[in-house]
């Protein structure tokens, strides 16, 4: 098990390094960041001043190492707009995104997994058709549009839910529903196809041939194998929910990381954008690594143990 773990962590470390490089390089996508920060109206001298102030004139590699080493110490640079450490702003906003993403993820799992299993147990049955309907519609309805319509219907017409802001927990109801509705289809499809494949294997038929009742066959034999692909996809899905919530946050005016990134982009506050991309990417790497370790726990073949 140890060799598997160390290998997996080493890969994760390499991915983090690459991702940090990519998010750093993003700054230079627009050519000279100083001009971008100086804004369209800015004069050449302003850009020059910024270039010196932020040390953009140093060679790229030096800037990168400087950024990385300080990042490792927890200092992700200075926000140009707020002029306070980026980490401070992010710390104040990350709570919203994490709650939104995780709650939506849990809700999505709670809907998708049982639905996927039921659909797999009765192929082409009415549950299967409903599941397919939800999947197709879930992937077709743009989440931001769904959000707006939900605000109009539930917020304005019926007034059940506050229209925006995340002061009270009710403020999270609509955003969570909208976000999870977008995550359900993929989770449901992978559970359903995983179950269908496993149910046709010999060891499931052997379990039934041994006289095990259907509910035991499903829970102990089928489910245990069907969740392997689900675990890996869930990590990817949670990562996307966290980074994808930017749209929902702007629709529901929740000031999470996503909205912060959007605002920073409009204000060319690049260090903040850079830091958010890095954090979300690292979060994703952590999630996928945890998923692989969980999978190794579930599937002895991955562990390499005899």
């Amino acid at each position, binding site marked *: 098990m140890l*060799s598997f773990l160390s*290998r997996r962590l*080493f890969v994760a470390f390499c991915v983090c390094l690459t991702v940090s490089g990519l998010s750093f390089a993003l700054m230079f996508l627009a050519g000279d960041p100083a001009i971008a920060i100086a804004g369209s109206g800015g004069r050449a001298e302003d850009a020059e001043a910024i270039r010196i102030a932020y040390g953009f004139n140093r060679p790229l590699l030096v800037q990168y190492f400087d950024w990385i080493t300080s990042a490792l110490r927890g200092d992700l640079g200075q926000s140009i707009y707020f002029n306070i450490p980026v980490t401070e702003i992010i710390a104040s906003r990350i709570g919203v995104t994490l709650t939104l993403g995780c709650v939506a993820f849990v809700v999505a799992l709670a809907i998708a997994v049982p639905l996927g299993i039921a659909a797999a147990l009765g192929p082409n049955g009415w549950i299967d058709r409903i599941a397919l309907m939800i999947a197709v519609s879930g992937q077709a309805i743009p989440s931001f549009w769904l959000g707006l319509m939900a605000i109009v219907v539930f917020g304005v017409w019926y007034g059940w839910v506050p229209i925006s802001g995340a002061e009270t927990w009710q403020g999270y109801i609509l955003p969570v529903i909208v976000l999870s509705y977008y995550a359900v289809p993929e989770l449901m499809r992978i559970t359903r196809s995983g179950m269908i494949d496993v149910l046709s294997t010999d060891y499931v038929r052997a379990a039934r041939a041994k006289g095990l009742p259907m509910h035991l066959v499903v829970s102990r034999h089928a489910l245990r194998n069907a969740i392997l692909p689900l675990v890996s996809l869930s990590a990817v899905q949670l990562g996307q929910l966290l980074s994808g919530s930017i749209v929902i946050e702007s629709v529901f005016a929740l000031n999470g990381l996503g909205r912060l990134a959007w605002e920073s982009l409009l204000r060319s506050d690049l260090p903040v954008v850079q830091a958010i991309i890095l954090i979300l990417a690292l979060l994703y790497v952590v999630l996928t690594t945890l998923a692989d370790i969980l999978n190794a726990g579930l599937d002895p073949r991955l562990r390499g143990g005899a």
Partner: protein
Amino acid sequence: MTAVPMIRLAGVSKTYRLRRGLFGPSQELRAVHDLSLEVARGETLGLVGESGCGKSTAVSIMLGLLAPDAGRVEIAGQALDAMAERDRVRLIQPVFQNPNAALNPVKRIRSLIAQPLKLHGGSEIDREVARAMEMVGLPARLAQAYPGELSGGQRQRVALARALVLKPAVLICDEPTSALDVSVQAQIINLLLGLRRELGLTMVFVSHNLAVVEHLADRVAVMYLGEKVEEATTDALFRAPRHPYTQALLAATLPPDPGRGLPELRLGKAAADPFALRGGCLFAPRCPVVEPICRSQPQDLRRVAEGAVRCQRAG
């Protein structure tokens, strides 16, 4: 052997390094070790052995698809690795086991058979394809069909036509009948017998079915975990097998005759594990007549009468 052998393998070895995961531990799998074979022109050599014995690796090496780590391969007297592709292709062609996987499902039969000619500048392709289809007993109307519409037997005939359209001298058959039903298998065996006589083909017939090999082959070589353990003329091998593994293989082949009943092999509980190769004879863990010397000393191939055997006890 005065005439130059059509196929000659001398001391061929191939070891795979299997790596698990990005930086995982790598294991060595000795697929073929010190394999020497000679097949005269027009002769058919049977290559038998169970899974993991290195048959398929040997086939890939003979076809020039896989470079051995050591040893020489000569086809019609020329070194295979020095041979130009155009010449190799016109000398030696394969027929594989699985009729579903041997033909590209998205192409029509006619283009599958014509492809070798197109690749290597054949002339009057239509006439050649028609002749090849007729030679393997395929009705002309199937030319426009897709592999999916044909039966297993018909697909194997297309594979044969495709292999023979460039008129190669050597045909390597890697378990061509194993995936077929008995009645269809007989059709393909008869076809091979006819073609061999008609075209003077030299053949290597690889199979785990000894009855089919006995019917087709002039000489037989028995493989076990990458090593040749016995070679002899077919009559000699089937009448008086020398190596204990060959004896076990022959006893384990069940003829359709209720009188024979179930053989008593006494091969013990161990399985043929290619990764657990210790010194001494590879068959020692399962050999019913094993002696201490077998476990300590590696066995080398001894010439015996018309063939050879890799067991110091064998008579």
